[in-house]
């Protein structure tokens, strides 16, 4: 079976915290109530719970996708993934 990964859209996420409530196995809240998500593939054991947590997100910011969460290979980030900024 194909691995699935949890994603958070940081712009639409408003920190309701339902994801951490429904899926404590993979989500923990930071000091301000925003989710910190386990980047590893979702274990089949909790996949059902993950789907329910995704469905419960009031701002549709929580998602399950077949692509892993990684630092984006943006033209601003070099191959080593080091962060920098232009402007």
């Amino acid at each position, binding site marked *: 079976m194909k691995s699935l990964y949890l994603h*958070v*859209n*940081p*712009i639409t*996420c*408003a*920190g309701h915290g339902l994801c951490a409530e429904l899926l404590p196995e993979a989500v923990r809240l*930071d*000091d*301000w*109530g*925003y989710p*910190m998500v386990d980047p590893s593939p979702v274990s089949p054991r909790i996949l059902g719970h993950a789907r329910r947590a995704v469905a419960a997100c009031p701002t549709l910011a929580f998602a399950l996708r077949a692509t892993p969460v990684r*630092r*984006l290979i*943006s*033209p*601003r*980030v*070099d191959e080593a993934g*080091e*962060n*920098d*900024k*232009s*402007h």
Partner: protein
Amino acid sequence: MDLAVRGGVLGSPRLLAGPGRDITESLAPHLDRLGDPLGAVGTTSPRELIQRIRASGLRGRGGGGFPVGEKLAAVAAGAGVGNRAIVVANASESEPASAKDRFLLSVRPHLVIDGIEVAARAVGARQAYICVSQRSEQAVFALRQALLERREARLLPVPVEVVLAAPTFVGGDETALLSWIAGGAPSPTVVPPLPAHKGLTGHPTLVQNAESLAHLALIARFGPDWFRRVGTEEEPGTMLVTVSGCVTSAGVYETPIGANLEDILEASGWSVETEVILVGGYFGSWVSRQDAGVKALSRASLASCGASPGAGVILAMPKTACGVKETAEVVDWLAAESSGQCGPCVHGLSAVAACLTRLASPASARRADLGRLLRWCTEIEGRGACRHPDGVIKLVRSCLQVFGPEVEAHRSGRCFGSYEGWLPLPATTQQVR
């Protein structure tokens, strides 16, 4: 007042070559000196042109150092009939301690325009923009004048529209820039999609720093082998750096990549009082004077002390200043410059700023604050839509590392320096509003 008051060179200049380093070169002398860039490119196919840029090893000069040829190839691959690529030159230069893009536009505007035209040819664009900082009237004037000259001389096959950059720090981010050009707020968007795949109005968009485009124009003329004659194997060419702080000759210098950091500071007349150097800008790192003696201005050399050349900011600070206080002021400013979209950035950075400010003073430094700060750094990193939080965290980490003894001193009630305001802090976006 603007930083860019004068230009200097180490070794033989390329971008700043030609007569009168501090005056605007108009079209006629530019053509006499270098000829028509597209004429030089001749019948070279876009594919060959991109191959030439790839072979040159040119990396972006905006801070990220991404290979320019790869980016061109990605944009060209996504473009096609009915889905034309767009070229955007980024000269928004919102980094407060940088002035090199504005300086380049003020003195060699045609070189940047050449780069835009060559890049447009390479990716098949028929539309181009240049987003320029409002901080230098001279740069905006020189650019507009240069575009007028070229239109009259019919040397502007792809029209270039000038857009004044948003007066915000985050506005220089690629996705924020595109949102701003499209008429929206200068706020970053979630990637993917990358601008190279789906940028302005959904078209594949090449966003390239102004200096990178000027180098690109010279590579198109003189070839990749010529370009590689200067610089290092991994990072060929020259780069523009903005040197400021406790130096007698602050300004924009063109230097080969791989030049000794100390030589650059020597050329700009650094003070014997210099204790530390901020390298790379506000998303950069502090480098001790001792390290500056042995480090070269290259990603490879600076990586060993956690730094990188970034967009070429080099700021010298004397030992009378307290590095923690100076950094805390900048972090506070950067926190306020968040575009306000992502929770970890909005709340996290303001908490980080407050924590670092407490550690900056013997009156308020608490043991628990250091542990808390380090935990927040780990937790916040990578959780914004753009890299604003990551850049700030990088600066905070560097501060804790290089000024560790100062933080310790503050915790035991002592302080060896004071706040002297070496790092420029423009009015924040909130104040502008």
